């Protein structure tokens, strides 16, 4: 009979949207710290979208549960050995922190001690959530997910995705819920040295590309069941993997951003390129997470 993965696309959506949210959140904090006044608008966008994305992901995840109404029991039936338990906890805490963070931005209250506390704790929990995605998978011991590399892969993918999303927002000039005067402030500060999005984009793409290739090499040299899992990934999803994950999602963005940096190391990519490559990164990131999730669940024949 036909085989269905226990975890379907709804789990991918949680990992993907959650990752984007965490990435955005981290970028927003980074911009806040870098130059709060100049990037107020972008940082606010990140602050608003982060809880929406993470929360949206959690909603998808909850519908994947057989008994969604029992979600809350993960708190009082907490199993310290279970990464799922920890995930449930850190995601809930992060949701609270990121909503407060967004609220403070909305109220333009970005100077108080509460805001600073949130900056600190938010960063920690964002990293925990981003790290949790990979940790969850690797804790389950399935051959494709085993070992720690999946943690780094998912975290970097998330931050890269968040960066790409922020570039999209920036280039498309999307903004809402931001006081009028903030927009003017940014314009007036334009001659100071700006945050280089392209450089971050380039570095993260390179890092992720190295991680993915390194991961694949380590898989191919792994134990029997690991290599079998890697082989079945390429058998079933080889085209998508090479096309969307590697070429579209990492190599092109890396080369494009690098080209732009070589031409002028302090300027950003041209708008068209920035939009295209960012979109590719986001699509590639989704494809990457989905393939890893589904391929990791393929049942491999085994006997002693």
């Amino acid at each position: 009979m036909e085989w269905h993965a226990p975890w379907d696309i709804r789990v991918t959506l949680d990992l993907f949207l959650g990752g984007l949210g965490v990435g955005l959140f981290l970028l927003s904090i980074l911009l806040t710290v870098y130059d709060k006044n100049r990037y107020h608008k972008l940082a606010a966008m990140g602050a608003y979208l982060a809880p929406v994305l993470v929360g949206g992901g959690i909603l998808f995840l909850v519908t994947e549960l057989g008994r969604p109404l029992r979600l809350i029991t993960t708190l009082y039936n907490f199993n310290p050995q279970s990464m799922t338990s920890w995930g449930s906890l850190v995601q809930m805490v992060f949701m609270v922190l990121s909503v407060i963070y967004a609220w403070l931005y909305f109220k333009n209250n970005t100077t108080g001690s509460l805001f600073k506390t949130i900056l600190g704790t938010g960063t920690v929990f964002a990293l925990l959530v981003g790290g949790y995605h990979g940790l969850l998978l690797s804790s389950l011991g399935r051959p494709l997910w085993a070992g720690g590399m999946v943690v780094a892969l998912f975290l970097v993918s998330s931050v890269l995705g968040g960066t790409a999303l922020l570039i999209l927002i920036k280039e498309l000039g999307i903004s809402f819920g931001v006081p009028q005067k903030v927009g003017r402030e940014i314009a007036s500060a334009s001659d100071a040295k700006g945050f280089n999005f392209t450089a971050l984009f380039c570095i993260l793409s390179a890092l992720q590309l190295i991680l993915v290739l390194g991961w694949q090499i380590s898989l191919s040299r792994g134990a029997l069941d690991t290599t079998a899992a890697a082989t079945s990934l390429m058998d079933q999803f080889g085209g998508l993997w090479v096309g969307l994950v590697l070429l579209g999602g990492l190599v092109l963005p890396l080369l494009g951003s690098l080209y732009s940096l070589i031409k002028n190391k302090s300027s950003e990519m041209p708008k068209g390129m920035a939009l295209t490559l960012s979109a590719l990164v986001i699509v590639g990131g989704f494809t990457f997470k989905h393939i890893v999730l589904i391929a990791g669940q393929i049942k491999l024949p085994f006997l002693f």
Partner: protein
Amino acid sequence: MARYGMVIDLHKCVGCGACGIACKNENNVDQGMFWAHHLKRTTGVFPNVSYEYVPTLCNHCDNAACVKACPTKAMYKDDKGLTLHNPDKCIGCKSCMQACPYDVINFNSKEPHAFWRDSTSLIDKGTGSGQETSQKTGQKLPYYNPERATTYAGIRPKGIVEKCTLCDHRLAKDEQPYCAYSCPSGARIVGDFDDPTSEVNKLIAQYGYKQLKPHAGTKPKVFYIRHF
């Protein structure tokens, strides 16, 4: 404390599948799910061919990955060393299924036993239907075994996982698990590995043993002796 587990004598096993069928019968397991099943392998090239059949079930691991993965402690180890599942705590997240190296945990994605709610009859008023049969017997499953319900949900509802309990309800009455009871070859022997005098300990001492995926670190308690 005790550490209950099973020895499967592959030399005696003829691969008939009675264990798997009997298990579904005893535990009211729905179509498409298997608490006890099998792995098969044909190797070699004609005419030098060998066929192997390995019956499988929950390994009731000492270091159970499902128990570790469960976010709500719905999977737990009991005082007999069994790996059991509490349907009331289960949130249906399937982490246990992902963590189990042996693919022996099943998820109820639908209301179980739909086959017996189907009201179509092949010949109108001439032949029965699943629904009519279950109504006539007064049960959701005509051969529903109420004894299963003494320690676990008699039929596990939609939204949660389910798995082998080594027939804890039968062990509680000093009866063998039904798969072992129904094995016509006597290949399945159940006992306490903490008891040095138990039959299971004697058998693995006499013959040596294999375990499925020992490298997974789960310390499985189904020991296979001899060869198919």
